[in-house]
Structures are given as structure tokens and as C-alpha cells.
């Protein structure tokens, strides 16, 4: 983006933030819901770890790294690229049609459409969980490991963005595809936080090759904690998860351009 575009984006974001403050109780509750939603994942994971020790052969401190990575990636996705989620409703309201006649890329307008208040809560809990996971970890956190973790979080962010962008592309043609977006969110939240080797091989395969959920946090965490050879996929593939996220996002943006060209509006 050129400097002028960055300045415009920053001004719009500030205005959006002030707009969110118009409904003060809703604003505070949105921060709370971001936090509460993530706490629910922690509660579930904690209960399972307490009752079923050695989940999938992983120590509880290692398991904790999976939801921490996923949650941090998710919080950053919500903050920077999350507006693609729920696009179907905006299409039904005809909002996209007005974006098309403005002198700014549609995707950028969409991302600047409102400030994601809930991301504040999401990220607060995610940072707390990551700090907790790192402090409980027995691993030697070398510069290499830390760099890989940072890249893994960014890769997870891009992979989640790619999946939701693909659903948004479908929404441009079928606004009801929004339904799939909500399901995707549920699946990522429920099954993205545990070692998938606890599931039968076929189900684990489905969440690896059918829906690449395992690449968001499970594989990077497995590589970091030394379980990379027991994931059921070649080690190099598990290690390349962040790269896959970047490639998937680039692919999804190409798909977005193609889908937008073929968008005909809600009235045909």
C-alpha cells in the first residue's frame, strides 16, 4: 500500500474505533466476549488435561502450546483480516455493491468496514495463554525455536484468513455460504486446540487434508515439542506449515479477485 493509502486506512480505523464507542455497553461486552470465548477453550482444555493425562502421548505443557498458538493466530486474524468472516450478510444487505463504485479496492474497504472490538479480548487472553504455555514449557527456547514460533503464529493467521477468504468467495456467489463460515469457526475452535493423533487416523486425515486445520497450530506445535515425526504426515510437511499458510492466503486472494469479477449482485 502507498503511504497515502496507509494514512487513509489509519484514519478510517480511528473513526471506526470511535464509532464502536457509540454503544458503550456493547463495546465493553464485545471485549468481554472475545476474552470469555477464548477462556472457554482454556477451560475445556484444562478439564480434559486434568481428567485424561497424557493426551495423545503429549505432556500437558506441550499440549498447551497448541491452543496458545492457535488462539494468538486467531486473535491477530480477527484484528487484521477478520472482516471476511460473515460477508454473506453484508452481501444480502447490498453493501458490496456500494464498495464496487468507490475508488478503493473492495477487499480493503471490507477490512476497514468496522473495528473488531472483540479482538482486544481475544488477544489479551491469547497473550496470557502463550505466556503461561511458555513458562510451563521445559523446552530450551533458542532463537531458532522462538523464530519458528513467531513464523508459525503468522502462518496460522494466514491459513485461517485463507480459509475464511475462500468461504467469502463462495458467499459472493451464494450468500447462504456464510453458514459454512460459522461451521468453520466452530471446527477451528473445537478441534484446532488438541493433538489430532487422539482421533482415529481417518478423522485426523480429514482434518489434515480435507480441512487443513492441523496446519494452523497442531503441526507447528508438534515440530517445536519434538512430536513432529508422530503426526502421521512427513516431517517436512509438518515443518512447512507456516509456508503453507502463506501460500494458501496468496491463493485465496487470487480466488477473491476471480470471484469478485464474476459477482453479479444479490439481484442477479
Amino acid at each position, binding site marked *: 500500500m502507498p503511504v497515502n493509502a496507509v494514512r487513509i486506512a489509519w484514519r478510517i480505523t480511528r473513526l471506526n474505533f470511535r464509532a464502536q464507542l457509540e*454503544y458503550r455497553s456493547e463495546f465493553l461486552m464485545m471485549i468481554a466476549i472475545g476474552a470469555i470465548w477464548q477462556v*472457554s477453550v482454556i477451560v475445556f482444555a484444562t478439564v480434559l488435561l486434568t481428567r485424561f493425562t497424557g493426551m495423545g502421548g503429549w505432556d500437558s505443557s506441550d499440549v498447551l502450546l497448541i491452543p496458545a498458538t492457535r488462539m494468538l493466530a486467531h486473535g491477530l486474524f480477527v484484528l487484521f483480516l477478520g472482516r471476511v468472516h460473515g460477508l454473506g450478510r453484508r452481501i444480502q444487505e447490498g453493501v458490496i455493491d456500494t464498495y464496487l463504485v468507490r475508488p478503493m479496492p473492495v477487499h480493503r474497504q471490507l477490512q476497514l468496514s468496522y473495528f473488531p472490538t472483540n479482538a482486544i479480548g481475544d488477544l489479551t487472553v491469547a497473550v496470557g495463554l502463550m505466556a503461561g504455555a511458555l513458562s510451563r514449557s521445559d523446552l530450551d527456547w533458542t532463537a531458532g525455536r522462538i523464530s519458528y514460533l513467531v513464523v508459525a503464529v503468522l502462518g496460522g493467521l494466514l491459513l485461517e484468513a485463507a480459509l475464511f477468504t475462500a468461504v467469502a468467495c463462495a458467499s459472493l456467489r451464494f450468500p447462504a455460504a456464510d*453458514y459454512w463460515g460459522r461451521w468453520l469457526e466452530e471446527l477451528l475452535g473445537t478441534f484446532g486446540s488438541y493433538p489430532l493423533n487422539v482421533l482415529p487416523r481417518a478423522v485426523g486425515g480429514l482434518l489434515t487434508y480435507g480441512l487443513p486445520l492441523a496446519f494452523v497450530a497442531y503441526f507447528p506445535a508438534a515440530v517445536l515439542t519434538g512430536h513432529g515425526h508422530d503426526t502421521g504426515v512427513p516431517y517436512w510437511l509438518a515443518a512447512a506449515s507456516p509456508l503453507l499458510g502463506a501460500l494458501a492466503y496468496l491463493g485465496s486472494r487470487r480466488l477473491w479477485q476471480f470471484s469478485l469479477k464474476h459477482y453479479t449482485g444479490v439481484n442477479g
Partner: protein
Amino acid sequence: MAAIHAWRAARVTPLGELHTPPRMTAALLRLTVQIVLVASLWHGLYQNTGTTAGLDRDQAVTYAVLAVLASRLRELDQYAGRDTVLQHMHFGTIIYWYLRPLKPQRYYALRAFGEQLYGLVWALGGYAVCLASGVVEPPKSAAVAGVFALSLLLGQWVLYYVMLVIDQLCFWTLRNGAAMLILIFAQNLLAGVYAPLWFFPDWFITLSTFLPFQATLSVPLSIYIGRIELSDAAVQLAIQAAWVLALALFTRLLWRRAARRVVSQGG
């Protein structure tokens, strides 16, 4: 005559669903995948464990799968039909609810009733398949099945009122998006959708007894799998009935107060 009008209002949402086959196909696929995943997860977790928190593997799997099926009972996307209280408040069309010959509270109740009946058909279909394929265990006796059915009915009744309170919140706050999300979270956690409440620490179980969410799902499912004995069921049913009564009176009060706040555009 009144019954015919009631039936017509109740079937609005289910008819909307029946006329959009892709939504139904998606719902079927989602339900199937969710059941397979949840059953697989609990089977996997119990691989090296016998009984934990008083639940063996079959009980835990049955509980988890029934929780998924029960979540279908009120899962219709009213938003797509543009008939949520939030949308009516946003677009100023809530006034039409007060201009019809049908009272808003009656219209709301009939729509919800239709939705829950439609959801029940899905849940029963799913239950029949799961039972036939051995994914869930049958109830221990006819008495257990009967008490479970009664408890589930009371639970859905409680859930209806809880959802209604959140919708009524719109009359005061204009928006209820965050409140609805908090409710869904509280419902999933405190009703035992994420994991049976029996797995949680004692203080958590005690805390949840003071809230209505446990009555919506945890109680009926615990009766079904035998974690609540029939001898203790009467107390639980009474608590559920008390919640129904308390929430009915509270929402009735809110409907009255809400009506005073509704103005047409421009006041």
C-alpha cells in the same frame, strides 16, 4: 380458528428452511461430521482410561453425541429471515410487531415453538440413526426414557425463556450481539455442551446449580445416561419447573416494560 392461525405463525421458519434445500444439505452434513468428530474425540480420550468422574466411555460418548443433537433444537438462522429482534430494532420495523392483531409476545412464542419442533425432527432423525448404528446407548428403561423426555421438554422451555431475555435486552440496549455471544458461551459451558459438567471441579458444579443453564441440557442428558438416578430425578425436575416459572414471570414483566419503550420512527 385460533389454532389454525397459531399453526400458520409457527410454521413460518420451518417453511423457510424447507424452501432452501442447500441450507438443509449443509445442516445434514454439518450434523453428521460433528457427531463423527465428537464421538471419535471421546473414544480417543478414553483409550487409556476406564471410568472417570463417574462416567465410563459409553456414557461419555452418548452424552457428547446427544449434546450435539440437542443443539440442533434451536439452531435455525433467524438472521437470514431478517426476523430477529435485533434486526427489527436496527431497521425500526419492531413497531409492526405492535400493529398486528397478534400480540408480539405470542408471535415470538409461536415462531420459537415452530423452530423447536422443526429442530426436534432433525434431532430425532439423528438420534434414530445414532441408536441404530450403536453410536449412542439406549436408555436403561422405559421409565428413564419417560423422565428424560419430560426433563428435555422442561429444559427446552428454560432455554426458550433465556433466549427471550437476551432478545428483550434489545429494547434497552438496541444491540444484543455481544450479549447473545456471551449467552451461547455460557450455555455451552454451563449446560455441559463442551464437556459433561461431571468432569469439572466441585466448586464449578456448585456454581452452575445457581444458574439456569444446567437445567437446559445437563440435567436431561445426565438422566438419560444414568448419572442422575431416577430416585434423584424428581428434585431435578422440580428445579427445572421452578426455573420455567421464574423466567416466565420475569419475561412477562419485561414484555410489559418493553412495550412502553417502542416508538415508531420519528417518535
